[in-house]
């Protein structure tokens, strides 16, 4: 408190940085602290009001379900009962995770690279852009949930339909961001290249394309999260057989549906934790590549912090 009297010009006084300063300078530490506090409050609230697991499980219950699924291959609280009519619960978590991950990652690569490629092609001609753009916008505003059943009809219940659905939702962010990115070149930059009589090819590869990269990577960041969503959506609409390991049907989306049928709220929470970790992990991989590629872009610099 004595800091205040010394004037605002010297935030760091002789006593070293205060606790609040330390926390603000280390976002990860701050997140860790707030997360622990959140868990404690959550646990306490659920216990204090004696909320039923079925309505809202305590974090300790979710953690137990998670551990059981990850280490003892024993999924959900309603194991073996009538709820487990598909044999889902006897299939390891890892089979479900690997299936969903496979669909999402394949879909991500397929969809985003096709989106990137088409974006590059469309922008070569103002005509193509003008003709294509309305369709792109119309298609983009269409809720993807509505298309999911069609994909099952066209591509079957197996993994193909999930990959294509994940691909579809990953496709648009890349298409749109690539197109916007290629258009983002400042008049000054175009004038610079023109003043050197740059060919169209040089204009594109030496200026337009690198200039679009921050937009393209923003697209990748969105697409990677969307692709996981697409895969889960595809699994919701139609379950597919396990391709490797495990019996019956595989996929976290299917497991999620199953748990909701059997009113296993604790198990559902455990799957949600896994899903958010997967999403976070995939996002981090993209961020990592982005930082390597876009080291020159001022925005990444700010986000990198220390």
């Amino acid at each position, binding site marked *: 408190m004595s800091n205040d009297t010394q004037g605002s010009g010297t935030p760091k006084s002789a006593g070293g940085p205060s606790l609040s300063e330390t926390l603000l300078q280390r976002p990860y530490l701050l997140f860790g602290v707030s997360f622990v506090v959140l868990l404690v409050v959550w646990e306490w609230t659920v216990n204090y009001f004696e909320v039923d697991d079925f309505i809202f499980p305590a974090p300790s219950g979710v953690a137990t379900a998670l551990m059981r699924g990850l280490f003892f291959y024993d999924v959900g609280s309603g194991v073996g009962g009538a709820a487990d009519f598909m044999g889902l619960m006897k299939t390891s978590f890892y089979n479900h995770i690997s299936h969903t991950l496979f669909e999402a990652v394949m879909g991500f690569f397929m969809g985003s690279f096709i989106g990137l490629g088409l974006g590059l092609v469309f922008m070569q001609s103002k005509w193509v852009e003008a003709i294509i753009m309305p369709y792109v916008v119309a298609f983009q505003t269409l809720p993807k949930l509505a298309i999911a059943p069609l994909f099952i009809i066209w591509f079957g219940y197996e993994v193909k339909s999930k990959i294509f659905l994940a691909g579809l939702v990953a496709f648009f962010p890349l298409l749109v961001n690539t197109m916007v990115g290629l258009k983002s070149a400042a008049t000054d*930059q175009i004038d610079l290249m023109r003043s050197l009589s740059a060919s169209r090819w040089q204009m594109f590869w030496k200026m337009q394309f690198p200039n679009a990269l921050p937009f393209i990577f923003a697209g990748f960041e969105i697409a990677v999260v969307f692709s996981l969503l697409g895969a889960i959506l595809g699994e919701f609409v139609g379950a597919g057989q396990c391709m490797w390991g495990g019996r019956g049907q595989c996929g976290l989306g299917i497991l999620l549906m199953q748990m909701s049928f059997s009113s296993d709220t604790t198990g559902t929470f455990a799957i949600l934790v896994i899903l958010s970790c997967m999403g976070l992990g995939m996002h981090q991989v993209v961020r990592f590549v982005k930082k390597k590629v876009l080291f020159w872009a001022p925005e990444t*610099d700010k986000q990198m912090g220390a």
Partner: protein
Amino acid sequence: MMNGYISVSNLEKEYVTASREIVHALTEINFEIAEGEFISVVGPSGCGKSTLLKILGGLLAKTSGTCTLKNTPIDGPRNDVGIVFQDPVLLLWRNVLQNTMLPAEILGLDAKKTLPRAHDLIKLVGLDGFEDKYPHELSGGMRQRNAIIRALIHDPNVLLMDEPFGALDAMTREQMNLELQRIWLESKKTVFFITHSIPEAVFLGDRVIVMTPRPGRISEIITVDIPRPRSLSTMGDEMFVELTQRIRNLLYVEGSLD
């Protein structure tokens, strides 16, 4: 008399805006620039300075009149012209050396010859040691110096500069003025230099074109008879003060300086 190195006569420029209005940006522009001459241009914002520069650089089509460089009409960008834009316009993914080399790359010049020249230029403007730094790692003044040597790498005969020092603080700016004078004295290029600063225009120019707006026209071309090299103390000389005052009067009579 059409035998200047650069000749502009009866130049008119009209823009048609998106709402189909016609903006008369330049009218009755007439001047000649001798080879190796340093021409400064001053005038209030919107009087068509950048428009004139872009027409000279072949980036913008004129409405009527004639513009020639070495007796050939200017009808597109040319390799013997280097342009420094108002902003440095460095490519962010290229370091100092790569940005400097951009024109050489695009024009397909032999790197064996241009690379040593790039290093010389980098040294000339005091960027040595920063060859592999990227624009976001440079100060504003360093970026501007990078942009200037980029315009010099392919050794153009003509240098067109659009308020290159506008974004710099007064001290850096004076330093850059001295550096630019030095580069010009060493290379003897023909320079067309736009600025908002009257002292800067007088300090650097052999002649100063004073422009007035609506529509943009030349109100007077003033000869600066101060021996070179000029130093910062020149700005205290009687002749210097007199010239800047004269230009200031011209601008305040015809319109206001922003």
